[in-house]
C-alpha cells in the first residue's frame, strides 16, 4: 500500500508527538509491516468540514544520521520515500519548547530536504511553569514557517493548528539553513539559536527533586522494587477476576451451544472449536490492557527511562539493556503482553533476544500443571523446619525459568544478535503528566491490533487442534458415560494417533503415549494439560482435579512425573505465544526457532531429570 497524499509528523523523542497525533486524529491505521520498529508508522485523518488530510506518525529521532532502525525508517521515508510509504508532501515539525536545542539540531537537517513545513511548538506550558519565555515570532522569522504554540495534552492551540494543516498558504518551504561542515558546527548553531529564542529562569525543580529520590542509590532501588511489585501484582492478580469472568462466560456460551444446537459434529465445532478458540483469545485482553496501561503511563511520565538506567547494569550481565527488564517481568504473568511490550526496547537485537527468551519466564499458565504434578507426587514434607518441600520445588521451577532465559539471552547476544549499534544512551525527559486521551487511544489500539493480527492466528490454530482431536469420529453408544466417550474419542482421534505414533520419541524421557498426548494437546495452552489429562484418564476435572491426582499417582511412575515438570519449565507449549511472536517479528521463522530451541532445552532437561530420578 502506498499513501500518496499525506503529511508526516516529525520530532525528537518525547517531544509530545504521539500525544499531538492522538488528540488530533483519534483512531489510527497501521501502515505496512515494520516488525523491527518500536512505534509502527500509522496513518490518521484530520478533517474540518469538507477538507481532510492524512497524517503519518513516524518514530521520533535525534538526527538524520540514524543510529537505530527506528531512526533509519523515518530518515528513509523523509529523504526518498519507503517502498510502502511515499515521501510526505508536507512535514509538521513537532518542536519541544523545553528541549529546543535538540529540536533545532534535528530541524536544521530536516529543513535541508526542501519539503513544505509547519512547526507545532509543544510543551509551551512547561516553559511558562519555569518562568521562561519562548519567542515563537523569532522562530517564525528564522525559519520562514508558521509556528503554532500548543499544549498537547490539554488541547490548547489545537484548533488553530488543525485549520492551518488544511490551508495551502500556511505551508512554506523553510529558509535554507546554514551549511555545516561538522557536527560541532551544527551543535553550536542549535545552541546559539536556542539561547536566542528561549529564556528559562528557573531549573525544573520538580524533576530534580523527584530524581533525587527515584534515582537515589538506595531510595531509587527501593522505589523501583515497589513500582515493579505493583506492576507485577496488577497483571498477575488484578487481571484474574476479569479473566475468570471471561472464562466462565465463554464456558457458559459453550454449554449453551451444546444444549441448543442439535447434538453432533456441528455443535461440537461451534462449541469446542470456535467458541473455545475465541474465548482463548479474549482471555488475554485483561492482562494485555493492564500491562499496556502501565507501560504507557511509565513511559509517558518519564519513569521508564529511569527504570532502564537503574537496571541497566544487571541486564548488562546478560548482554541486554535496562529496557528488557519490563517485558521479561511482564512475561512472568503471561508471555503474550510481555512480548508485545518489548516494543519499548529501541535496540533491534536486544528486542529480538528479549522476545525469544520471554516464553522461558514462568508464566501463570504453567501454574496449574506445576500444582497438579507437585501436589500428586511431591510429599508435603517440611524441610529445614520451615520450608515446605512442595513450595521449595515450585519456587525453584519459577527461578529456573527466569535464570535459564537470561543465560540463553547471554548466548544469543554473544552469537546471533551480537553487539549493538550503540550501548545504553538516553536523555531523561522531564517528569510529565500523561494524557488520558492519548493513553486511551494507544492502549485500545494495541488491544485491537492483538485481536486482529494475533487473535485470528490463534483462533485458526485452535480450530486445527480441535479438528485433530475431533476426527476421525467414532461411533459411540449412548450407554457409555460421557467422560468415557470423550476418552475414547480422544484416543481414536488424529491427535491420539499422532501421540501414539511419536510416543517412542518421548519414551527416553519417561512419557508413555498418554502423557505424550497430554503434552501435544496442551499445545493449545499449557493449562489445557489438566483437562486433556482428565479426558485421557477418564477423570472428571470440571470442579477439582482431586480424582485426577489420585489416578495419576497410581498410574504414572515418579520419575516420569518429575520429567513432565522438567519438560514444562522449558517447552514452548503455547500457540498463542507463537502467534504473537509471528506478529511481532514479522515471520514464522522466529516462532519456529523459539519452538525448536525450547524443545531441545525441555527434552534435554527432562531426560536428565528422568535419568537421575529413576
Amino acid at each position, binding site marked *: 500500500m502506498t499513501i500518496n497524499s499525506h503529511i508526516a509528523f516529525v520530532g525528537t523523542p518525547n517531544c509530545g508527538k504521539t500525544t499531538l497525533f492522538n488528540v488530533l486524529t483519534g483512531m489510527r491505521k497501521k501502515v505496512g509491516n515494520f516488525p523491527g520498529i518500536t512505534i509502527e508508522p500509522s496513518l490518521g485523518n484530520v478533517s474540518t468540514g469538507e477538507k481532510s488530510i492524512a497524517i503519518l506518525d513516524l518514530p521520533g529521532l535525534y538526527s538524520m544520521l540514524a543510529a537505530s532502525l527506528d531512526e533509519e525508517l523515518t530518515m528513509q521515508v523523509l529523504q526518498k520515500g519507503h517502498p510502502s510509504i511515499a515521501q510526505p508532501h508536507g512535514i509538521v515539525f513537532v518542536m519541544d519548547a523545553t528541549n529546543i536545542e535538540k529540536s533545532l539540531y534535528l530541524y536544521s537537517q530536516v529543513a535541508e530536504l526542501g519539503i513544505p513545513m509547519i512547526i507545532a511548538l509543544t510543551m509551551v506550558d512547561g516553559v511558562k511553569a519555569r518562568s521562561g519565555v519562548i519567542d515563537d515570532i523569532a522562530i517564525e522569522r528564522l525559519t520562514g514557517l508558521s509556528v503554532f504554540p500548543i499544549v498537547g495534552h490539554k488541547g490548547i492551540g489545537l484548533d488553530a493548528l488543525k485549520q492551518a494543516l488544511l490551508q495551502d498558504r500556511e505551508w512554506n518551504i523553510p529558509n535554507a539553513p546554514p551549511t555545516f561542515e561538522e557536527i560541532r558546527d551544527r551543535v553550536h548553531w542549535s545552541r546559539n539559536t536556542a539561547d536566542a529564542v528561549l529564556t528559562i529562569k528557573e531549573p525544573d525543580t520538580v524533576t530534580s527533586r523527584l530524581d533525587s529520590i527515584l534515582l537515589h*542509590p538506595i531510595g531509587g532501588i527501593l522505589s523501583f522494587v515497589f513500582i515493579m511489585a505493583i506492576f507485577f501484582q496488577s497483571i498477575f492478580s488484578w487481571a484474574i477476576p476479569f479473566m475468570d469472568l471471561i472464562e466462565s462466560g465463554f464456558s457458559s456460551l459453550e454449554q449453551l451451544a451444546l444444549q441448543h444446537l442439535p447434538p453432533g459434529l456441528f455443535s461440537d465445532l461451534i462449541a469446542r472449536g470456535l467458541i473455545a478458540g475465541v474465548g482463548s483469545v479474549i482471555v488475554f485482553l485483561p492482562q494485555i490492557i493492564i500491562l499496556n496501561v502501565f507501560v504507557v503511563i511509565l513511559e509517558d511520565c518519564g519513569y521508564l527511562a529511569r527504570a532502564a*538506567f537503574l537496571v541497566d547494569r544487571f541486564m548488562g550481565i546478560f548482554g541486554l539493556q535496562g529496557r528488557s527488564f519490563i517485558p521479561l517481568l511482564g512475561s512472568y504473568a503471561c508471555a503474550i503482553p510481555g512480548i508485545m511490550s518489548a516494543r519499548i526496547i529501541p535496540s533491534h537485537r536486544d528486542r529480538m533476544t528479549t522476545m525469544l527468551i520471554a516464553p522461558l519466564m514462568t508464566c501463570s499458565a504453567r501454574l496449574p500443571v506445576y500444582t497438579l504434578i507437585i501436589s500428586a507426587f511431591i510429599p508435603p514434607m517440611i524441610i529445614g523446619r520451615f520450608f515446605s518441600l512442595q513450595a521449595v520445588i515450585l519456587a525453584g521451577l519459577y527461578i529456573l525459568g527466569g535464570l535459564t532465559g537470561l543465560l540463553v539471552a547471554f548466548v544469543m547476544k554473544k552469537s546471533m544478535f551480537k553487539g549493538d549499534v550503540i550501548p545504553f544512551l538516553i536523555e531523561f525527559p522531564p517528569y510529565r503528566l500523561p494524557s488520558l486521551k492519548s493513553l486511551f487511544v494507544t492502549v485500545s489500539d494495541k488491544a485491537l491490533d492483538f485481536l486482529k493480527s494475533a487473535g485470528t492466528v490463534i483462533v485458526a490454530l485452535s480450530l486445527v487442534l480441535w479438528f485433530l482431536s475431533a476426527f476421525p469420529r467414532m461411533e459411540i453408544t449412548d450407554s457409555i458415560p460421557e467422560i468415557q466417550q470423550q476418552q475414547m474419542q480422544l484416543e481414536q482421534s488424529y491427535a491420539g494417533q499422532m501421540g501414539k505414533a511419536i510416543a517412542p520419541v518421548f519414551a527416553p524421557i519417561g512419557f508413555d503415549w498418554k502423557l505424550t498426548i497430554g503434552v501435544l494437546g496442551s499445545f493449545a495452552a499449557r493449562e489445557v494439560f489438566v483437562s486433556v489429562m482428565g479426558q485421557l484418564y477418564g477423570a472428571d476435572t470440571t470442579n477439582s482435579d482431586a480424582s485426577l491426582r489420585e489416578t495419576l499417582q497410581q498410574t504414572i511412575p515418579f520419575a516420569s512425573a518429575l520429567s513432565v515438570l522438567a519438560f514444562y519449565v522449558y517447552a514452548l507449549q503455547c500457540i498463542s505465544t507463537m502467534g504473537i511472536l509471528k506478529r511481532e517479528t514479522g515471520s514464522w521463522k522466529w516462532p519456529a526457532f523459539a519452538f525448536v530451541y525450547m524443545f531441545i532445552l525441555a527434552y534435554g532437561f527432562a531426560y536428565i531429570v528422568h535419568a537421575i530420578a529413576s
Partner: protein
Amino acid sequence: MILETLRNIPIGTTAILTSLEGNPVFIRRLNEMGFLPGTKFRLLRRAPFGGPVEVSYGHTRIAFRPDASVTIHIHVLS
C-alpha cells in the same frame, strides 16, 4: 590530571571532556547530543553497582553506559 574513564571520579565532579575514541556510531550520537570534546560537564550520578552514568552540561542531561567500546578522556576541574 587526565583520567581514562568516568568510573573513578566522585559524583559531583566537574570536568572537561578531552577526547572520545572507539565505537563511531556511539561517539557520533554523543557528539550530536552536544557532548563534544571541550564540553564542560558535571557527573550527576552513577547507577547502582557500577551501572550507567548521568552527566549534565548546558541544558542537557544524558545518561549512558561508558562500556568497553569507547575510551573517554577527561580533564578534572574540581
